[in-house]
């Protein structure tokens, strides 16, 4: 029997009991749907995590000053002065000792309000050096834009570069270049517009696209070498809020990060810093992804096992019910292998239909989950259905059909023609 005839025969057999055939595929439909939906959500999460990590620069090590518990503060007369975080001494030590560090870029939070009219905004202002643009994986948006230059710092120029999101909020549709931004009563001229394509943050804190950058020297000359924030008699002293260290190459990152942690442990009496290594986070995300894949595969295997057993049951029932048909076909010239292929093809077609329906349901479920998670207007789940996951889902359906259809089909082929013909 050729393939066309086989397809016609199989189609006729399956449509004979359409509802039963569809019910038989239910296990496969739900199994594949679950797999496709979870893979889509997992893939979305993975891509998002990778995007976040990579947007921080894979060859960077980022140090962040972390305020320790107040109990560790140094008490002086009636006021508190809390000094913590990354110090100038740390920067000098790293510069002198860490030969694999190519660039050191300090970032200081200016801690001055930026106003939009009379209203203060959550736009952050930071003071940094010209290399910040490169290490933060930002790019200039407008051809007229420029980033901070060494000269800006030397002449203490009150200029700034704004992120695209901050620019939209501050200036709307107006051209931001040449406009003034008032930061702590000082007017800064916008000389550049920058963007981080991944929507990343400095050390996971300040959104790069919602940032205003000014020269470190200008900020220091205006507001002193350290940032001091007074509240109820309390002062905080932080030299640098963040420190970007760009490694000479990726291979040097694990060793440099290890040495850095050892140094910081010895140089700081308290844990007032955090070491962020995007490369390590990436490795960790990949490990998590592998675990996720194993879990998903296990769930898929269990659901497909259940679905496959359902298919096998239905096929065995089918064969029992159609024993006489098998006898007739054998009497009319069908070989054992014709019967085997016919029932195997039915099983594979059933699971393939189940796989197709399941993939559709899985895509719909993933899309629904994404939509529901974003209902509040916040960033929620992201579902990404890859063509690979669909191919895998369909391949697995076919394999399930073959695996669980072979035994019933073989049983059908082995039936004695005469016994089958006499079957009531």
């Amino acid at each position, binding site marked *: 029997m050729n393939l066309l005839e086989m397809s016609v025969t199989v189609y006729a057999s399956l449509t004979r009991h359409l509802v039963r055939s569809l019910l038989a595929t239910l296990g496969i439909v739900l199994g594949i749907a679950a797999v496709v939906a979870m893979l889509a959500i997992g893939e979305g999460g993975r891509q998002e995590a990778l995007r976040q990590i990579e947007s921080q620069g894979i060859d960077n090590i980022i140090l962040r000053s972390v305020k320790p518990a107040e109990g560790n503060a140094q008490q002086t007369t009636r006021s508190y002065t809390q000094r913590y975080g990354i110090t100038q001494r740390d920067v000098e030590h790293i510069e002198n000792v860490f030969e694999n560090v190519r660039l050191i870029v300090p970032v200081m939070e200016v801690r001055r309000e930026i106003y939009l009219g009379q209203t203060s905004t959550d736009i952050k202002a930071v003071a940094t050096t010209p290399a910040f643009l490169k290490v933060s994986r930002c790019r200039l948006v407008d051809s007229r834009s420029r980033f901070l230059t060494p000269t800006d710092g030397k002449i203490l120029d009150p200029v700034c570069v704004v992120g695209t999101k901050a620019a939209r909020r501050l200036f709307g549709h107006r051209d931001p270049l040449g406009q003034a931004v008032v930061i702590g009563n000082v007017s800064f001229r916008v000389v550049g517009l920058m963007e981080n394509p991944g929507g990343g943050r400095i050390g996971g804190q300040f959104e790069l696209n919602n940032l205003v950058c000014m020269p470190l020297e200008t900020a220091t000359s205006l507001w002193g070498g350290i940032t001091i924030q007074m509240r109820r008699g309390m002062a905080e002293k932080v030299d640098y809020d963040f420190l970007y260290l760009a490694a000479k190459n990726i291979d040097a990152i694990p060793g440099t990060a290890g040495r850095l942690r050892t140094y910081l442990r010895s140089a700081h009496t308290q844990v007032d810093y955090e070491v962020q290594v995007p490369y390590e986070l990436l490795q960790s995300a990949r490990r998590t992804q592998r675990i996720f894949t194993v879990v998903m595969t296990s769930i898929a295997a269990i659901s497909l096992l259940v679905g496959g057993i359902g298919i096998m049951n239905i096929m065995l029932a089918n064969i029992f019910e159609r024993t006489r048909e098998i006898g007739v076909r054998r009497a*009319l010239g069908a070989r054992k292998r*014709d019967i085997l292929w016919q029932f195997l093809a039915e099983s594979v077609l059933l699971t393939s239909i189940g796989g197709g329906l399941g993939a559709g349901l899985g895509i719909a479920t993933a899309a629904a989950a994404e939509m529901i998670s974003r209902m509040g207007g916040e960033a929620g789940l992201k579902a990404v259905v890859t063509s690979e996951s669909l191919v895998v889902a369909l391949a697995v359906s076919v394999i399930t059909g073959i695996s669980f259809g072979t035994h019933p089909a073989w049983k059908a082929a082995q039936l004695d023609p005469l016994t089958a013909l006499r079957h009531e």
Partner: protein
Amino acid sequence: MTQPSPPALSPTPPLIELTGLEKTYAVGGTLIYALRATDLIVRHGAFLTVMGPSGSGKSTLLNLFGLLMRPTAGTYLLEGRAVSGLNDDATSAVRCKMIGMVFQSFNLLSHLTILENVCVPMQYAGIPRAAMRQRGKALLDRFGLDGRYGSRPTQLSGGQCQRVAIARALANDPPVILADEPTGNLDEQTGLEVMGIFQELHRSGKTIIMVTHNPAYRKYATQAVSIHDGRASET
């Protein structure tokens, strides 16, 4: 100088030749003879009826003819070829191309149309779809079922179903048609109509081997076998 004489033509072998064909079953250590050693020759174009009481071995003989069971002993030659010891594939090929079967209960596949039913043996013979459908329609037309190609067997009368079954038996144009009580499920009039079809097939050159209970059908036969307790004898 003498003219060379033409080469002697080899005699055409009989269509079916059974020699000492026997079928036994062992039941609880006792040997049951379903068919005792039988010798029989059926020539091309014969109309053979097989008669006998129930349980005498008629169906066993027919099933042996149809290669649906293997004999315990003896040989079965079909057009001079020993067919009882063939493997499953070869046996299926012989059933497909050499033998057409008509059953008492029609054995049509109810989920297929009657045209599809007629096409089933042709599917296994590897005939292309278009040719298959064309031949299937021609056969149905021949038996007065034109315009009913898309009908299901459940929509037809018993006589019509048996005509579809006969059309199916002829699908691959086999030389021999085996019929197991083909009128057993039909009323007398319809039975006679069906017998008329077999008579017509016989006249067209087909060899018919028919198991029947009805002695009235003996008149259609050119050869008759009677079976009692597994012993077959030509009458």
